């Protein structure tokens, strides 16, 4: 089984992730999840998300991955039972109490061990297997050798992060946020102190910000050594990021499975992923320890991405017009491209924009304004318009 697993911070993101090719999504409820300050899902949202995913033959995993303090445990058992009743496919847990409780309750849902468990060796994996864990999200520090051995010795489902932000520490082995900001990192309050800068007795100042993870080069090798689930980080990310990253990995995985991925295509996908990210990305620990090349120094060095121009709301086949919701400034004369889960990416030169009164306008400059573009190409809800990035995929 090969699975592409996407983050979803809310119901809208869940739908985009699934439409753009994810086989499963992981989400956080309003309690017990490590993104305490994200929008997250109410039980009703989870029910809707599960119904939606299951209608597409896809899965939903819910993170219950905080380290519990005495005060947090109230209501946990009822919550797990409720998740089970809703039909959630698995919970992702790190605290051994949650693992044991879920097993004891004989729930239908699977228990997956969170990356917070820091599993790097087959013996630790076997310990959790005996506890009833069906899948392990390996530590991001796991090397190819570690993954291979864990798979060989345990036969467990293995889930590995392939894309997104990295902790500087082993996940879960850090309370810098607690010390500096009083926000508990292991209960979802992480203030990302590892991205701050520090004075020391020498200049320039000390910093340890990690570049992001990007495993595009090694997806095929990961499949061969037994990784089952390819996980993208980013429950706080927007729909454009999720759509772009998930669609890219979907295409890569499918082409690898069909034995048709060319190096030119891989280069193109890498460029797309690099463009959508706000930090550089590298493979990190897969074939050796990260060096100074895998870090930033002297601050955050992040760029904001304004490539996302519009979201397709509808397409009128008779009038050959696409209805768009504006997301960033664009104007007549711009060369853009459209992409989506069921189409080849194509370029388009904007020669006319109409507002919702049918008047011609030269720019779309208001956030979320509704505009119409003449369009011969069939488009669907969920498709997106972005800045033209590179030579289009179909030209390869």
């Amino acid at each position, binding site marked *: 089984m090969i699975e592409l697993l996407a983050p979803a911070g809310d119901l809208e993101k869940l739908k985009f992730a699934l439409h753009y090719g994810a086989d499963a999504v992981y989400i956080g409820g309003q309690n017990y999840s490590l993104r305490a*300050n994200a929008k997250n899902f109410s039980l009703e949202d989870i029910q809707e998300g599960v119904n939606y995913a299951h209608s597409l033959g896809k899965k939903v995993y819910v993170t219950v991955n*905080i*380290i*519990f303090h*005495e005060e947090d*445990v109230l209501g946990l058992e009822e919550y797990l039972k409720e998740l089970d009743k809703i039909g959630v496919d698995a919970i992702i847990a790190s*605290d051994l*109490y949650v*693992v*044991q409780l879920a097993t004891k309750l004989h729930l239908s849902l699977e228990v997956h061990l969170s990356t917070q468990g*820091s599993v*790097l*060796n*087959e*013996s*630790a*994996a*076997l*310990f959790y297997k*005996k506890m009833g864990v069906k899948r392990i999200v390996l*530590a991001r*520090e796991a090397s190819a*050798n*570690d993954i291979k*051995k864990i798979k060989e010795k345990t036969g467990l489902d293995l889930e590995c992060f392939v894309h997104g932000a990295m902790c*500087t*520490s*082993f996940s*879960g*082995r*850090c*309370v*810098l946020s*607690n*010390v*500096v*900001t009083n*926000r*508990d990192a*292991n209960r979802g*309050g992480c203030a990302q*102190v590892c991205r701050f*800068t*520090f*004075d*020391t*007795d*020498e200049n*320039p*100042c000390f*910093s*340890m910000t*990690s570049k992001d993870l990007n495993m595009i080069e090694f997806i095929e090798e990961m499949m061969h050594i037994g990784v089952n689930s390819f996980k993208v980080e980013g429950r706080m990310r927007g729909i454009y990021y999720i759509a772009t990253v998930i669609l890219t990995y979907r295409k890569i995985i499918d082409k690898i499975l069909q034995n048709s991925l060319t190096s030119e295509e891989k280069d193109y996908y890498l460029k797309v992923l690099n463009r959508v990210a706000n930090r550089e990305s590298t493979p990190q*620990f897969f074939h050796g*320890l*990260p*060096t*100074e090349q895998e*870090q930033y*120094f002297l601050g955050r060095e992040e760029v904001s991405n304004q490539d996302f121009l519009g979201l397709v709301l509808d397409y009128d086949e008779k009038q050959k017009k696409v209805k768009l919701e504006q997301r960033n400034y664009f104007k007549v004369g711009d060369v853009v491209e459209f992409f989506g889960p069921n189409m080849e990416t194509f370029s388009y030169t904007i020669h006319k924009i109409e507002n919702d009164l049918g008047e011609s306008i030269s720019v779309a400059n208001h956030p979320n304004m509704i505009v119409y573009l003449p369009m011969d190409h069939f488009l669907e809800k969920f498709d997106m318009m972005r800045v033209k990035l590179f030579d289009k995929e179909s030209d390869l």
Partner: protein
Amino acid sequence: MKSKILLIPGENTLEKVSCCDFLFPLDGFCVGMDRTFSLENIPDHSYIYVNRLLDSRGIEEFVKLLPLFSKKVKGIVFEDLGILNVLKENSITVETIFYGTHGVCSSYTANSLLNDVDTVILSNDITKEEIDEILERVTKKVGLMIFGHLPYMYSRRTLLTNYSEHFKLEKKKKRIVKEQFSKQEFLVVEDEFGTMFYDPLVFDGRVLLNKDVSYFLVDLRFEHVSSIKQFMQDFLTGNTIPNTTDGFLYRKTIYRLPPKGGV
């Protein structure tokens, strides 16, 4: 039963101290230490300490030590649960003490672990009030760290080396760094197994000495005390120790931010 003290020695001469047992950081299996010890060179029936998260090669190396365990090891303090599995699979009967530095913050978690280990050391980032609640509810006695530099972060990366190489600075394996806004200082220690961030001030948790626990952990890994015997005498009689912190004992953390514009 009176609680035992497990003492991690620093670089001083090892003197036998009646009130405590030494906890020897094991060569090749510890990160962020000044001094480690090989199994061959410690006294028989000692406590050993493994604080690394082990990769597959690490666990293989650990298995090679098992033939010496019956003679050398009385108990083991560890963070990687793979250690526990190895001991069980090889029917090694030593005392097992789990010390997940930040992972045991409730009696529920502690009790789950206590099904499989002899005792656990509670996390360092909980309050005294939480410790009291946990001690009331655990099914077996648990341990507490009561002295030493609190570990705040463990990275597999070689962060000091990376910093030195990037800026072409002299390589150092220990530095003090100060976060620029909060002015909070950290002691950063690196070795081949990664980088640890510690509080540069020593945690003095002697207020916990009256608790009924399995072990008190006294960590002198960076303390260059001239005499352990003298140190322990001063420590237990309540003499003042300069430059200390009470860590999180009276400091409750939050994790949900208040809504914007309100408390």
